[in-house]
């Protein structure tokens, strides 16, 4: 039994941590309600899919899903990374731009009499990440459990990994709330860009040395490139006459 439960636990732990990273990133920057609802909806969909299809889920075209989610994360992550770098460089103000944008959207909403408090993009991002990683966990359980003839222990190993990751996620909420906004957006931008690059390239059929372990290298790579972009922006920035010393 342990022969099926342990590999399923370890492999699932990696996938759950990846999903948690995205959910925490969405929660800290777009709101916990949206992240929680998106994640819960993702879990509900996965549960319904497992109940309806069982082991037949192993035939889901994961590549197409990876491309869609990966591209969404790239647009989302690179946008934030660019903005955080420009803020650190002093090219744009720290809060004005967001305020202007939010006032514009609020104006459009109030003009139409629409009141939406849920951040659908944040919820959608958390939902997509949970569904994508959850499907990978299901594939792991099917692969490990089917070859060893032990679907139940493999499923239990994956479930234990999920519980550990969810508990860790709740514990990390409070410390993350104390990180300054721009630092958080910078870090989230780096992580989402790394995940987006990883998933998109996997969807394209590319292979990485070390598989999921390359995510750490991608995170480091985007951090280094962003630091270089910051230096570049500081040297190149054009200041309005008399605006800054």
């Amino acid at each position, binding site marked *: 039994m342990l022969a099926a439960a342990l590999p399923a636990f370890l492999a699932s732990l990696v996938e759950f941590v990846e999903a948690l990273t995205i959910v925490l990133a969405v929660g800290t920057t777009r709101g916990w309600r949206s992240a929680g609802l998106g994640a819960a909806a993702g879990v509900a969909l996965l549960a319904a899919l497992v109940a309806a299809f069982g082991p037949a889920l192993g035939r889901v075209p994961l590549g197409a899903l990876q*491309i869609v989610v990966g*591209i*969404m994360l*790239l*647009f*989302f992550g*690179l*946008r934030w*990374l*660019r*903005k955080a*770098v*420009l803020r650190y*460089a002093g*090219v*744009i*103000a720290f809060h*004005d*731009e967001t305020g*202007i*944008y939010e006032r*514009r*959207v609020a104006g*459009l*909403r109030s*003009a*139409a*009499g*629409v009141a939406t408090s849920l951040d659908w*993009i944040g919820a959608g991002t958390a939902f997509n990440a949970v569904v994508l990683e959850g499907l990978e966990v299901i594939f792991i359980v099917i692969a490990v459990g089917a070859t060893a003839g032990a679907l139940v222990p493999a499923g239990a190993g994956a479930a234990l990994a999920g519980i550990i990751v969810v508990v860790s996620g709740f514990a990390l909420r409070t410390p993350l709330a104390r990180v300054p906004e721009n630092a958080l957006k910078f870090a989230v931008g780096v992580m989402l*860009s790394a995940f987006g*690059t*990883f998933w*998109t*390239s996997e969807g*394209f*059929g*590319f*292979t*990485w*040395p070390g598989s999921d372990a*390359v995510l750490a290298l*991608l995170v480091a*790579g*985007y951090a280094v*490139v*962003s630091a*270089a*972009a*910051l230096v*570049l*922006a*500081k040297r*190149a*920035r*054009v*200041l*309005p006459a008399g*605006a800054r010393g």
Partner: protein
Amino acid sequence: MNALRGALAELGGLFVEDRGSALAIAFVLAVVGGLAAMHRIAPQYGGAFLFTGLAGQLLVSVYVAAKRPSTGSG
């Protein structure tokens, strides 16, 4: 109609802040995805190719934004 405009503005603003950089990201994805579809790129180098293109896009996008006269709000 205004509700739709509001929703589209929100959606667009969340993913596309600067049209030039969004087009550059789309261009990199189209080129790398196209090469992958035509099997013109070795699978073991594809990821590095994609990362390089996106990192280059980020550097150019930040540089171009920094060279524009600042308005203080971006």
